[in-house]
């Protein structure tokens, strides 16, 4: 019985796939999306400007990673930057007194609000920390490098 059902479904799916010129196959079931309070909602992106009060490379407060306390006009904002190693590898640093600008989204955690930064600018230097969808680039960004550039920068002689 199952195989008959599969044949029927397979034939129907094939017909639909042929009829639709899209790059992906026919959609069989819609996905349900529910939003969690921790989510980076691009629609809620804001810009904050201020002065660095302190920079912590390995914060004890979640989310893990580098945090920077920023004095804005009205308040102190805890900004999450992601792994400090990513900042270092991009030769990006923050120090007390630096005038900074961030694009990101504020989320609520058990210990208060945290601003998840997607873009950070310190003077003339800017760095993308998250993708346009809000995911950290630290573990994936190198994948977008031109292959030749990647080759040049891989450790010389490193076994693969």
């Amino acid at each position, binding site marked *: 019985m*199952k195989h008959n*059902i*599969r044949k029927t*479904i*397979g034939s129907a*799916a094939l017909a*639909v*796939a*042929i009829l639709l010129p899209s*790059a*992906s*196959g*026919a*959609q*069989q*079931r*819609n*996905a*349900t*999306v*529910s939003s*969690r*309070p*921790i*989510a980076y*909602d691009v629609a809620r992106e804001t810009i904050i400007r201020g002065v660095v009060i302190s920079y912590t490379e390995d914060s*004890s*407060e*979640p*989310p*893990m990673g580098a945090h920077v306390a920023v004095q804005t006009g009205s308040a102190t904002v805890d900004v999450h930057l992601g*792994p400090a*190693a990513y900042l270092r*590898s*991009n030769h990006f640093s923050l120090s007390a007194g630096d005038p900074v600008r961030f694009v990101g989204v504020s*989320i609520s*955690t*058990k210990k208060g609000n945290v601003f998840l930064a997607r873009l950070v600018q310190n003077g003339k230097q800017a760095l993308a920390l998250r*993708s346009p*969808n*809000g*995911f*950290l*680039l630290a*573990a*994936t*960004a*190198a*994948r*977008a*490098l031109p*292959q030749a550039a*990647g*080759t040049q*920068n*891989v*450790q010389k002689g*490193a*076994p*693969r």
Partner: protein
Amino acid sequence: MNTRMNRLVPLAWLFVAFFAAACGGGGSSSGPPPPPAAKFSNATLAGQYALSMTGTELCAGQASIFSRAGSFIADGNGHIVGGLEDINVCTGVQTLSFTGGQYSVGPDGRGSISLTNNTGTTTYSIALSTATQGFIGQTDANTTASGSFQRQNPAAFANAAINGGYVFDFKGAEVAGTAVNVASIVGRFDADGGGNVSNGLFDSNIAGTLSGQQTFLPGSFYKVDSNSDGSAFGRGTAHIAGQDFAFYIVDATRVKFIGTGFPSVFIGEAFTQQNIAFNVASLSGSYAFSIDGTSSSGPIAAAGRFTADGGGNVTNIVADENNNGGVALLPNGTLTGTYTVDANQLGGGTLTWTDSKAGTSSFIFYLVSPTQAVFQETDSQIVSDGSFSAQTTSSISTAALAGDYVFGWNGISPDPEDFIGQLTLTSSGTFSGFMDLNEFTSGKQFFDIPVKGSLALIGDGTQANTFKVDAQTTPPSTFNFTVYVVNENTLLLVGVDTNRLVIGTMRRQP
């Protein structure tokens, strides 16, 4: 090359042997009883094994996701005598032959492997749960990864062996131009034993964008290599779920896949799907799960359990989630859930639960059988996948769990790290053992680190249990886990520390 390879027997066991000899004294004809026979040795690792793993490499000075899958041949005497692997690294995809290597396996099942190809030698820690499978972690500087290996059945190295339904779970990153997006793809297909696939269905989650259930495009296929190299190692190529892959056959029931569509990178496995018409009653009873991936906060992992009533409702949901150090426990308020199984009877379905305080978590799944499934989270800005398995219905005691286990864990703190180890759990819940640890950012590898701690079962043991590990690193480290028992052979762990995220599995040794 890692100097650890020179050790034919782990130091810990040399110490035990020396201590036993020193305490043995002399002049007594009866003497102490001989030490128990070693369960594992170099002879245990013999034959052909498929491996797969994913982790982090240094690329252009940055951490970068990579994957490898392959096959190696161990001669039972400490030598790697052949093999082949596919790697997907930041410079491209390569297929490399193993020209040599060494390995050692200690009495506790822990050991090490070196694999040599024309680019050099890579090194790994291993922990055997049996002679046919184990955990593996790469231990090179600036490269850390972990995964598993299983003994291959060469009789299955043919298109004809790949026949019937298969359920798969791939994770990685999809690259389009300069955009790099974390990705998860789960689904199922029918293989006809001749290289053709039909009834292919998949759900992808690319950086939080859900595809919904899609059919495979025409042109999907699988093909076991027919050339002299690939055919000897169970290698093949495939185009399924819209992606290009190389694969390595473990046996007819299990295949390891690695994405070859560089610069995108995927890794995963496919398992034989039971040939039944799935319906809502197929999901019935208790299940334990683990799932991990990425959220907009960073890495995310969760473990838990739920009960399905066979009629579309889930109850008794318990879960621990670590979202880059932010730990959330369920239930928090009142927790209810539902599930559906697709009307096409091919094993796909949806699963949702809502906590009155914590909100809603949603998933799609594909059933391997009524006792096993792969699943993918579909909540906004979370890309994660994992599996759930039927959980024992009887009460669990520490006495029942007592025994030897190997483990493979991975995580961040906040930079990537992988752990491979072994421990002995007593009937009182205390344990001791050893593990190897590779820290990516520091570029440091630690071997034979003593670990000890305790397991505390809560209630009947089928719920959230606590597992505390003290590791004699420098400085000492403490890991706090919640453990969900699948059965007396398999435990799922998720770290609940706010300064470290670890997810992993423990498997019983004989």
